[in-house]
């Protein structure tokens, strides 16, 4: 018996509107509502709704033999609530069949795993809350943004209580090894790692409708032969891809739905084949070997690394600047600021700044609102600059025993640092429970754990 594990990634960012520097301090709304609504509606009609329906019918038709897994980002779900609530309903319908697993990830499809571990934890918790609220299930398996994985990320994820995680079966990671086995994290052997079979996944996700591909047209029976031709001892195949593959990246006219439908029917009628989900794999199989990934890998581009998001100077400056604001955002405890902070986390903003793709723009221009990476960077930095102005204004009003923070010194400053470290911890807890804005003028004293004060003190020194 050989099992196919389908997992679909669904994400749409809140794209930024054109934000000029002279809007700084004047305009605090950053999103291109028209564009976001337009793209979401379009993809909902071409992909989300029809494919959900197809999956639902296939599940109903085949009892509980057909299974898939999804990862829906928080910002995507928020946009559905705003622009296409019927899609949420159809995901709920899928969830209720019991044959659909929802995976855990960061709320904003962010790169927090490359920044602050606490921020990473916060965002994962925030996402779990959202999934629980909407679908009444708790995700058990973790997948990181763009399948970013390294030994260190794996260890963080394992500390959060997950027992398995998805990653890319990149050549430079696996070498001669096969992705069709379970592996474990070298730093924490209790974390199992599921690897994407990139060849078979990309045959569907990238090559399906490519007429210059030697295997075109790809039909289900041929594809099944490829799966069956794998060595005997390989008991499962992980097919991970963007959900937009079905109807958007590969248009409906290409026959992608027909392919999926035939594939499911043929797999189910074949005694040697079946479907499974990441959590079933985790329970059923034991890892065969440790996987050592000292440098982060991802499922993007030829390089399968982070260079599409954090490759150039602009991306590093923007990402660094964003992350430096974390403690202030928590301290400010403002609902709107927190929300903007979440939206600005989306990895897409950094992706648009990539200079790698001048040669190969096709995949990367997908839904990209900018003419050039420079354009993307300037726009993002303008927005971030306005965000910082608001944040500083907000945190300026915070006082410690009646004294503005910037006037604190000596003993009082030390006291304040201790005190705010506790406050932060408490606020973070509360933020995870999605609390509303909070008055921070009377900080409570608890155990110090965080290292926020030096940075805050630095920001405070700037006088307006």
């Amino acid at each position, binding site marked *: 018996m050989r099992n196919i594990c389908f997992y679909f990634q669904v994400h749409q960012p809140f794209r930024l509107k054109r934000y*000029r*520097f*002279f809007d*700084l301090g004047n305009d605090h709304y950053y999103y291109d509502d028209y564009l976001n609504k337009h793209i979401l509606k379009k993809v909902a009609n071409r992909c989300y709704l029809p494919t959900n329906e197809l999956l639902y019918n296939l599940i109903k038709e085949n009892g509980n033999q057909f299974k898939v897994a999804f990862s829906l980002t928080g910002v995507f779900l928020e946009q559905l609530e705003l622009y296409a609530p019927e899609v949420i309903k159809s995901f709920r319908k899928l969830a209720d069949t019991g044959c659909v697993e929802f995976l855990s990830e960061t709320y904003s499809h962010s790169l927090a795993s490359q920044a602050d571990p606490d921020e990473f934890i916060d965002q994962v918790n925030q996402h779990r809350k959202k999934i629980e609220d909407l679908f009444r299930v708790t995700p058990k398996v973790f997948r990181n943004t763009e399948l970013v994985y390294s030994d260190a990320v794996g260890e963080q994820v394992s500390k959060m209580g997950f027992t398995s995680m998805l990653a890319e079966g990149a050549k430079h990671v696996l070498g001669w090894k096969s992705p069709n086995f379970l592996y474990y994290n070298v730093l924490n052997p209790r974390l199992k790692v599921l690897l994407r079979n990139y060849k078979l996944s990309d045959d569907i996700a990238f090559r399906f409708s490519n007429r210059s591909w030697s295997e075109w047209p790809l039909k289900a029976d041929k594809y099944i032969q490829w799966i069956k031709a794998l060595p005997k001892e390989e008991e499962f195949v992980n097919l991970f891809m963007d959900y937009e593959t079905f109807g958007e990246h590969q248009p409906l006219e290409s026959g992608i739905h027909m392919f999926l439908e035939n594939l499911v029917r043929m797999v189910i009628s074949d005694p040697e084949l079946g479907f499974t989900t990441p959590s079933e794999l985790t329970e059923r199989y034991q890892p065969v070997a440790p996987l050592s990934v000292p440098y982060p890998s991802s499922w993007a581009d030829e390089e399968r690394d982070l260079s599409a998001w954090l490759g*150039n*100077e*602009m991306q*590093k*400056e*923007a990402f660094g600047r964003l992350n430096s604001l974390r403690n202030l955002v928590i301290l400010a405890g403002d609902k709107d600021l927190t929300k903007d902070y979440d939206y600005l986390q989306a990895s897409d903003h950094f992706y648009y700044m990539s*200079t790698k793709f*001048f040669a190969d723009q096709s995949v990367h221009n997908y839904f990209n609102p900018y*003419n*050039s990476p*420079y*354009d993307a*960077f*300037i726009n993002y*930095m*303008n927005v971030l*600059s306005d965000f910082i102005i608001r944040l500083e204004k907000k945190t300026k009003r915070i006082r410690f025993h009646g004294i503005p923070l910037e006037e604190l010194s000596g003993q009082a400053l030390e006291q304040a640092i201790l005190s705010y470290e506790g406050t932060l911890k408490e606020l973070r807890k509360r933020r995870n429970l999605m609390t509303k804005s909070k008055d921070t003028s009377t900080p409570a004293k608890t155990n110090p754990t965080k290292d926020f004060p030096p940075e805050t003190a630095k920001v405070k020194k700037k006088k307006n």
Partner: protein
Amino acid sequence: MRVLMFGWEFPPHISGGLGTACYGLTRGLAFRDVDVIFAVPKAYGDEDQSNVRLIGASQVPVRKRSFVFKNDLVTNHENFTEERSRELVYIEIGSRLVPYLSPEEFEQYIRDRVIEEDYSWSRPIDREIPATATLTDVIGTIDFTGKYGPDLMQEVSNYALVASEIALENDFDIIHAHDWLTYPAGIAAKKSSGKPLVVHVHATEFDRTGENYNTIVFDIEKAGMEVADLVITVSNLTRNIVIKRYGIDPKKVVTVYNAVESGNENRIDQPVKSVEEKVVTFLGRITYQKGPEYFMEAAAKVLKHADNVRFVMAGSGDLLRKMIRYAARLGITEKFHFTDFLKGPEVDLMFSLSDVYVMPSVSEPFGISPLEAMRSNVPVIISKQSGVSEVLKHAIKIDFWDVDAMADAIYGLVTYESLPTMFRQFGKEEVENMKWENAALQIKNCYIKLLYPSS
């Protein structure tokens, strides 16, 4: 293979983009083993005339000399060894032709230089540009009597006349003429030699004057393009104009992008920047086509929000005074400066003092200056209405009229530190890969196709 080229200028006297391009191309062709007989118009004055040799019976003073490209002249390409140096035959023709001038400007130019009481400058233009003996007499006696027609068209036809003589006396395979002033020369050379003609369009009358174009110039351009066996344009922007406005068969119009000379590394060792602010520069002729007012409006927007920046408008032109008044009206003169016309080394100095270079041209067939800026590590903002925007990746591209976008790009470049870093990292490399050798190879291939159509 040998080319008779009617070009413009030669070092050390280079005054503009056309001369730079002709010179760079000649060097590139030399690298590609193409011999060039390079003819330029040049009025004799204080120059050394020891090598001057009169050609033919037309009495036009023509100076002919040989010139060998040295290694340091041709880009420091590793393959370029001593043996591959080519000899260049360089011919200067006694003519007062200057690139860039319209017929009206030319009159002014001549008048400014010679106080002449009784010239008849309203001579009718002969569309056929015939080679008559009287005309050559006129030009042949320039330096002795000072009597000549201050008429640009006259000069153009004189030049054509000499061209046909040169074509008869020299041995070559193909003729290559740069911009309209030399098209009649190219046509004449083609007629007298029967060799194929390539015309190279660096700019059209529409680029220079917009819709109020000079019909005579237009006719000369059109005639040149029609007679030519091949038309080379410096961008697809220009190619479209040639096809649409001049009605030339698209099959014989090809785009070959310009390149840039690799920089003299020792140009400015230590720039003496005396202001703390970032310097944003416009450099070029201050004329409508270059879009100076958009630059100024963007500057006003930036200055309203940022105080770490100064603006410089370098160059001169018919809009200079208007621009100065405009700056005063916008109230930005404290941080907006004018330099008037800059000469060669001053241009290098200006680049070395600049943090951002802006080329907001309304219409620019190619635009070499952003490449020169990038070569000096200066990030550039260019208009999408320039030919160079078709090839540059590491530049910020805006519509010339989109003052907001221009202001935003300037603000970004002077505010967010990683941006200039990016440009230093990638821009210079990109420009240094735009070599004249490559442009020359494309052109050589065009020559081969013309000469051996079957192969």
